[in-house]
């Protein structure tokens, strides 16, 4: 078990290093000099040079990379060019919107998908299965931002149950904040739930065809007992992979939903930073998102080992 975890940890560190190099390199090749962008087209060459020095743009590349990474390791993400505030502070403010939203949506998605997938698999080919599969087929096809607009139209504009946008902040009270996040979370979760339910169902059906299910039935387990005691845990293995991928998607996929609901999250921050060519912000937020994704995948790998003894014990 420990060996497996260490191996995964090593690959996590390697992934992070490679990812940071890629992000740094991409930002470097972007056409357009950030210094020139700040000062505008009429800037005098000597002011430009002075700003470039101030921003460290005249340093050699490896040095700047090292500076950037070292900074991030200490929690120093640099200073935003456009807002003149530390990036770390901007990120800290917004991650408390994006992260809860992603977790909220993931919980919703899992809570809907597991029962739906298991229900459909248990009734393979019957009306209940066809109903669930039809609904998921539709769910997969719905763009989440459009679904968000429809939710706003119904539940915010017509019924007035939820606010149509904005975020009051956690200081205003937990329930108020959760209420503001509810429609966005539903909009994000439902299409993902549809995908997850389909994966859960097909994975379960694969397991139900396995020999060990027949063995269990020969022991005297009913179909339902065999499904719950033997198929579900084995079926979780591919489902976990999808949950890991979905978390990454939900975290970043918030960008568009955050636009729809005017939520001050990481997505909106990065979107604004890109339009303003605020590369330090872009670089840091992308790195942060990738970091979270890689860590989540590491957690998924550990979850595999918890589910599957073949990974934790050698022969």
């Amino acid at each position, binding site marked *: 078990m420990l060996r497996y975890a260490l191996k995964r940890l090593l690959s996590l560190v390697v*992934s992070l290093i*490679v*990812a940071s190099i*890629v992000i740094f390199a*991409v930002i470097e090749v*972007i*056409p357009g000099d950030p210094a020139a962008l700040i000062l505008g087209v009429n800037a005098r060459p000597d002011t430009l040079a002075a700003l470039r020095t101030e921003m460290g743009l005249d340093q050699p590349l490896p040095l700047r990379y090292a500076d950037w990474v070292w900074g991030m390791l200490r929690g120093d993400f640099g200073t935003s060019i456009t807002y003149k505030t530390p990036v770390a502070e901007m990120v800290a403010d917004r991650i408390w919107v994006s992260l809860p939203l992603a977790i909220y949506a993931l919980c919703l998605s899992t809570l809907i998908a597991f029962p739906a997938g298991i229900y459909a698999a248990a009734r393979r080919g019957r009306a209940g299965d066809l109903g669930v599969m039809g609904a998921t*087929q*539709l769910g*997969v*096809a*719905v*763009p989440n*931002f*459009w679904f968000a*607009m*429809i939710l*706003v*139209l119904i539940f915010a*504009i017509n019924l007035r149950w939820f606010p149509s946008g904005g975020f009051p902040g956690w200081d205003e009270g937990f329930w108020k904040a959760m209420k503001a996040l509810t429609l966005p979370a539903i909009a994000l979760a439902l299409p993902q739930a549809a*995908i997850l339910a*389909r*994966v859960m169902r097909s994975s379960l059906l694969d397991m139900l065809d396995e020999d060990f299910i027949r063995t269990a039935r020969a022991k005297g387990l009913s179909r339902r007992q065999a499904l719950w005691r033997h198929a579900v845990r084995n079926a979780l293995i591919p489902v976990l*992979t*999808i949950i890991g*991928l*979905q978390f*990454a*998607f939900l*975290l*970043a*996929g918030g*960008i*568009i939903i955050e*636009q*729809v609901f005017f939520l001050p999250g990481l997505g909106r921050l*990065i*979107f604004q930073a*890109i*339009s303003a060519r605020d590369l330090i912000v*872009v670089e840091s937020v*992308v790195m942060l*998102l*990738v970091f979270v*994704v*890689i860590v989540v*995948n590491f957690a998924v790998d550990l979850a595999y080992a918890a589910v599957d003894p073949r990974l934790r014990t050698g022969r």
Partner: protein
Amino acid sequence: MPRSFLIGTVLTALFVGMAAISLIWTPHDIESLDIPNKLKPPSGANWLGTDQFGRDILSMIMEGARTSIAVALLAVGIGMALGVPLGLWAAARKGSLLDELIMRGNDLIFAFPSLVIAILITAIFGASAVNAIIAIGIFNIPVFARLSRSGALSLWERDFILAARVSGKSAFRISWEHILPNILNLMIVQGTIQFSLGILAEAALSYIGLGAQPPTASWGRMLADAQTLVAIAPHTALVPGLAIVFMVLGLNLMGDGLRDWLDPRLRVERA
């Protein structure tokens, strides 16, 4: 032939047909504005109503279908053209450094939030349909690479591949002659799924203004325009949204039906 395949094909054909007809004819000209006639609900003259500039929504949906299909199809093309050879190559050299590099590269792309990178690419190189295609296409590469590798690996274990090796055929030749034809079904099915995901991605990108630029019509931008109007003219949001839903639904049904028809044991990735 499975029923889902039939329904899916009809839906898909409907949109492809609309896109094709828009090349030579649309009910109204979408480049001329008709402000007095704005935000009209569906009527005899404008079957699906008009938008905030009085343009005919049906005509815009038809032209938008063209943009969606072109972007998604080319993005799938990029993914297949690069992903499949990489996957076959990795499988042929299973366990080698090359295989490891290709697969780790794939994992790396998966680790990047796709939408963020798509936004980054279009933001850096400018918002345009071509950049949207590239941005979506890049994320199709690892999907096809992974799938073709796993398909190829299971074939490499089979005795008929061993027989070909005993006949002295090179790995390249075996991949081309024996492996590729046998994973083609899988790739086609996955292709339709990626096509539908491409439609969704294109809509998302143009919704935030990073897809095809005006005057090219696009479903995503129609939705962006409709956002502030949804309370007074719901049809401006409903129509393009439903167009996306039905197009994606059609492709997915077609893909699933095709899989059941060709080989029910094929596994596709959908994430």
